[in-house]
């Protein structure tokens, strides 16, 4: 792409111009496709910023995340293409959950008769009340899910949920930036190298949302309660729980499944959720909720650049007159 954007003799275009031209090229490649909204851009950028800050904190507490981010924003995020999918998936999931919460039915408010004399009547829920494996699994899933927002409720990606390759790449990029910032190599490089290895080892030992999803899914399967639980998550609009079950059933990562569900054609939902054995009718709230999400990206259709020749060939075959004698 870049060689197309640089005119002979003029050198490479500046970053802003290059970004604009790339955007224009993307637009020309698919003028009929809906563009990102400002909300989608802002959400994804915020998620990326929080992720970079979290990873930087794990690498070296002395790194100023604001300086790092400012540098990266000015120069462009290294590994932007790697970050795009997880940030977009998390942003879209957040939009979906927010929208779903806004449309939810008003809560049932207990009547005075129901609450009369109920003040503290039941007392404090017992701390040591026994929990089933299913309860424990769901609790762990909720905890893992809540780690995916910051203290102000903004969406983020928990480091424990990051793909190990992406985490490693981010650590190395930040370490390289830190070395340049400090202006010295040698001992500092060795220290940062150790820090990268330590951070990778620590992350490998953390149980993120994928592990929690798998655990809950196993518990439900063992009790034969999977279909019922999946239907309940849909009825309650508990979308993270549904994504988690679907991801575990397909043995895929949570983020991938979130993106798959969020961009699925409505007609594809039954087959996508078939492993959960949810009744077709129970899918209605899910279909409705996804349909109502403004600016939703529907996957499918369109051909990538490299497929263009194949597309033309296929089209030519369809319109070409049959060879003589075959009519």
């Amino acid at each position, binding site marked *: 792409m870049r060689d197309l954007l640089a005119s002979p003799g003029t050198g490479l275009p500046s970053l802003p111009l290059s970004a604009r031209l790339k955007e224009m090229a993307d637009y020309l490649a698919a003028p009929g496709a809906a563009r990102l909204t400002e909300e989608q851009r802002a959400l994804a950028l915020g998620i990326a910023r929080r992720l970079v800050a979290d990873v930087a904190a794990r690498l070296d507490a002395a790194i100023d995340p604001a300086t790092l981010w400012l540098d990266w924003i000015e120069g462009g995020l290294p590994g932007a293409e790697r970050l795009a999918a997880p940030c977009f998936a998390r942003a879209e999931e957040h939009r979906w959950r927010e929208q779903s919460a*806004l449309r939810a039915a*008003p*809560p049932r408010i207990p009547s005075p008769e129901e609450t009369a004399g109920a003040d503290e009547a039941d*007392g404090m829920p017992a*701390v040591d009340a026994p929990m089933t494996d299913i309860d424990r699994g769901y609790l*762990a899933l909720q*905890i893992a899910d809540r780690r995916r927002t910051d203290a102000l409720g903004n969406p983020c990606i928990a480091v424990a949920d990051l793909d190990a390759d992406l985490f490693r790449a981010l650590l190395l990029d930040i370490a390289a930036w830190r070395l340049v910032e400090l202006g010295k190599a040698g001992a500092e490089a060795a220290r940062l190298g150790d820090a990268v290895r330590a951070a990778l080892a620590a992350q490998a030992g953390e149980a993120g949302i994928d592990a929690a999803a798998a655990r809950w899914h196993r518990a439900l399967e063992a009790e034969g309660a999977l279909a019922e639980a999946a239907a309940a998550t849909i009825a309650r609009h508990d979308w993270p729980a549904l994504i988690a079950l679907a991801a575990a059933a397909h043995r895929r990562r949570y983020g991938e499944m979130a993106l798959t569900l969020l961009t699925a054609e409505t007609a594809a939902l039954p087959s996508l959720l078939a492993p959960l054995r949810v009744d077709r009718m129970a899918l209605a709230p899910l279909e409705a909720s996804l349909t109502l999400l403004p600016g939703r990206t529907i996957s499918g259709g369109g051909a990538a650049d490299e497929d263009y020749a194949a597309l033309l060939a296929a089209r030519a075959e369809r319109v070409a007159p049959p060879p003589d004698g075959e009519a």
Partner: protein
Amino acid sequence: MSARIVRGRIDRAGTLVSADAPLLRLQQRAGAGLEKPLALPHLARLVALAQRLQRDISRPLHAADDHSDVHALVRIIPDADGASLEISDWRTRPVAQPQAPPHGTPPAAAGGWSWECDARLRLIALRAGVEAPPPPAGWEGRSLSELFELQPDGDGHFAVLRALARQAPFEAQSARIDAAGGRAATTLSGDPLFDAAGGFTGFRGVAMPADSRREDASGRSLADPAFGSLPLSDPQFGRRIDGALRGPLSRIIATAETISGQFDGPIRADYARYAGDIAHAGRHLLGLVDDLADLQNIERPGFKAARDEIDLGDLARRAVGLLGMKAEEKGIRIDAPRTDDQAPAYGEFRRVLQVLLNLLGNAIRYSPENSLIWIRVDREDDRATVTVADQGQGISVDQQAVVFEKFERLGRTDSGGSGLGLYIARRLARAMDGDLVVDSAPGQGARFTLSLPARD
């Protein structure tokens, strides 16, 4: 204040034949479009009414799509081929659903923690503000009561348990916790969470060091002696009840008006009258909900009205336009300011109009039939004023002392009002650096004067 007018055109068959963008968008979100029947029920009824009466009408317009409420003023000018619409003061506000992220809940302040627990009070989130000590390790899944060691209040009660039983917000729950710096006193507050099926799923709230409790609570507490222990003193409950009542009431009113107006064909006269009574009662209840919502809003600490550049003469004429028909029904003539009578002032357009509608509505309600109401605008030094005077029974000096009190109806028991209108009107006037005063004597009518900072 934007004086932009949104225009539209309806043909004789009730089809929207042209519309400015905001109106067209609303029509489209209602599932229709241009060259389609007007799909906004309230507006369609007003158009039908104007066409039937063959005269201009001006009314407040309420519409809603799936994510916002729309409030505006509409003027409908019928003619032989249909009707023209002029919509002004178009305002939208997001539909506040109780399940929405609780915007009123303060996020973890710098020195505090934000937390979330499930319906059995097991912690599923605990995060520290930027200046707060880190949460203790191993908090995940532990009971709120275990981690925070809740303390009973003076009566031996636990605010969090009462809230759990009522599925209601709570605050000022004292607790102690082992933090990095040692054992610390802290104060918990939280809001209930519900899923889409309306089921209670837990609480979300903040834990603040005990010495910052007063500062934290100031933004949340709205306890009002006039409400006593009613949950209406709680802003979260207020928002919830507001959202829960407004929609059903609007539907009741709209349906009752449709029946009463016999828009879909003639029905027995007594049935139409009953439907009219239902609509009337519904409007009264909706007015009460509006008043309570206003009350909560204006009594919020830090409430401040906008400082628009307004003209009291223009606003007075708008108020007359909105309530003129109601006055005509009683044979009351309103002597409004002339078009060239101006009183430039500073104040929030919508709020000033609200005050004037309240004053004029009261004057119409309590004036005898076939009487006269005057509205005058003036300027006194740095104050612009508008006075609404009627020929009603007047207000004694004793009554004048209490007429601006909350829930004061001067002994009236009819269904005309909530007793909050004048209280709210004066609070609004004062929030705009103005005032609202009354001058009256029994048998000589009443004169209410709204004064605001004048502008040159």
